[in-house]
């Protein structure tokens, strides 16, 4: 297959065939992580800039590892202590990155649309969206898809429940897009105050009762719940949230016998997920982290290669 994407801003334009091909390539990338020497020369001489204007641990680290395993030089450009905090405009930042001859820019930003803006302005470098506001987090969706396919096989017709704060979740938005593309039926659940208005136009169902969403599901996806939501009056109390929408053993027991439990991390144990579930036999949360490295390797490899 000829790879036609230089950037990853959103998965919207990716076809199902492209997703399938991408996941196949990811499998071979994961094998590299089992080797005694985890380094191949494929991206020698390429410069990858990690530009995180918002906090991140695993996304930033996994892009960094992915680049390094493929022999790219990875530079971390964090917002605190950088010129962004000195009032540099985004446009000046772009020109700076271009002047430094970056081949790829990985960007996370609190504002929706920043990766898209960078991709339009940067003439040479590839741009990868590592999360923009509440809009999207496409590499998270790819690693979730990869992990689910690895555990369940073909995802066509599988049932998925996404439970929690969908309204503020860029992970949910990207996952809905990606999993639906692979033929997965998605149902949302969570407090009505934390649901987007347009669930139907997203092509997914919504049920307030988490038990109904979990019933027979093959993938149970729990979203991170921010404690500030309680202060904003969007959830009644942490205890009640945990009882009604948290990942508890009794909720998980309603899912299909082969079901997997996923969470994008970092987890709030006792809030959206009980420790017994997080560390239980259904949990694939650590597999997700490992997949994250392999997925980002495949992305860097496919988008940075060649003479484009």
């Amino acid at each position, binding site marked *: 297959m000829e790879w036609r994407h230089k950037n990853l801003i959103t998965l919207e334009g990716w076809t199902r065939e492209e997703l399938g091909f991408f996941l196949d390539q990811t499998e071979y990338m994961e*094998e590299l992580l089992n080797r005694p*020497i985890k*380094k191949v*020369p*494929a991206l020698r001489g390429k410069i990858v800039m990690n530009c995180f204007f918002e906090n991140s641990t695993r996304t930033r680290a996994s892009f960094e590892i992915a680049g390094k395993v493929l022999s790219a030089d990875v530079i971390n450009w964090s917002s605190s202590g950088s010129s962004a905090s000195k009032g540099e405009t985004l446009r000046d930042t772009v020109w700076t990155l271009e002047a430094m001859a970056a081949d790829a820019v990985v960007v996370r930003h609190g504002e929706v649309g920043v990766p898209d803006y960078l991709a339009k302005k940067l003439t040479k470098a590839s741009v990868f969206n590592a999360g923009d506001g509440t809009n999207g987090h496409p590499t998270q969706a790819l690693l979730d898809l990869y992990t689910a396919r690895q555990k369940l096989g073909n995802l066509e017709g599988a049932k998925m429940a996404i439970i929690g704060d969908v309204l503020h979740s860029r992970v949910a938005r990207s996952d809905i897009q990606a999993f639906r593309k692979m033929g997965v039926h998605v149902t949302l659940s969570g407090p009505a105050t934390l649901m987007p208005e347009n669930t139907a136009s997203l092509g997914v169902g919504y049920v307030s009762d988490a038990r109904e969403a979990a019933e027979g599901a093959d993938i149970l996806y729990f979203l991170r719940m921010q404690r500030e939501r309680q202060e904003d009056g969007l959830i009644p109390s942490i205890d009640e949230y945990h009882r009604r929408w948290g990942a508890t053993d009794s909720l998980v027991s309603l899912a299909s016998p082969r079901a997997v439990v996923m969470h994008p991390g970092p987890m709030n144990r006792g809030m959206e997920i009980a420790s017994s579930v997080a560390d239980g036999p259904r949990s694939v949360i650590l597999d997700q982290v490992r997949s994250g490295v392999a997925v980002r390797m495949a992305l860097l490899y496919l988008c940075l*290669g060649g*003479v484009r």
Partner: protein
Amino acid sequence: MEGDGEVTAQTEQKWAEKASVLGKEDMERVLRRIAVEIVERNKGLERVILLGIQRRGVYLAARLREMLKEAEKVKVPSGELDITLYRDDISVLSDQPVVHSTSVPGDITGKKVVLVDDVLFTGRTVRAALDAITDLGRPERVQLAVLVDRGHRELPIAADYVGKTVPTSRSENVEVRVKELDGEDRVVICERTGGTESGVEA
């Protein structure tokens, strides 16, 4: 065809078959001889492992393994090696080459590795394979078996076992077909009828 300037014709039919080099029986005979030579050279099959280079080398290694099992009653451990990420032309190709699987039967340190590939041409694939092997362990020795040696080396690399030496011109391509992937066992020489030089396998 000469003067055929149509773009679609060029991209769709880049190579025309010119001559057949090895038929199905020839291929089998040649591989049997290589199997015998491997046993001879290594004084048996102790610590010998076969590594097929993706993609057709993998199938040729599997044939050799079967032949060695028949003749010597030994199951030689075998694996597959993908050299894509070690290629030296990765930044000049117009499209990123597809990665295939690598799987090695256990630790290769201290083993006698026989690399198996279909065609030896510039030697660049073998150079990449040697780098890949170095990252996987430290074998006692590495040997190279190829079905066809077509010349035109660009690096100081030679094969230990050669099925057939075929003199070619650079405008030709040697195509090894295996029934698992191509529906038949045959080696043919093809000649370019259009298209660009990119995409020629090393």
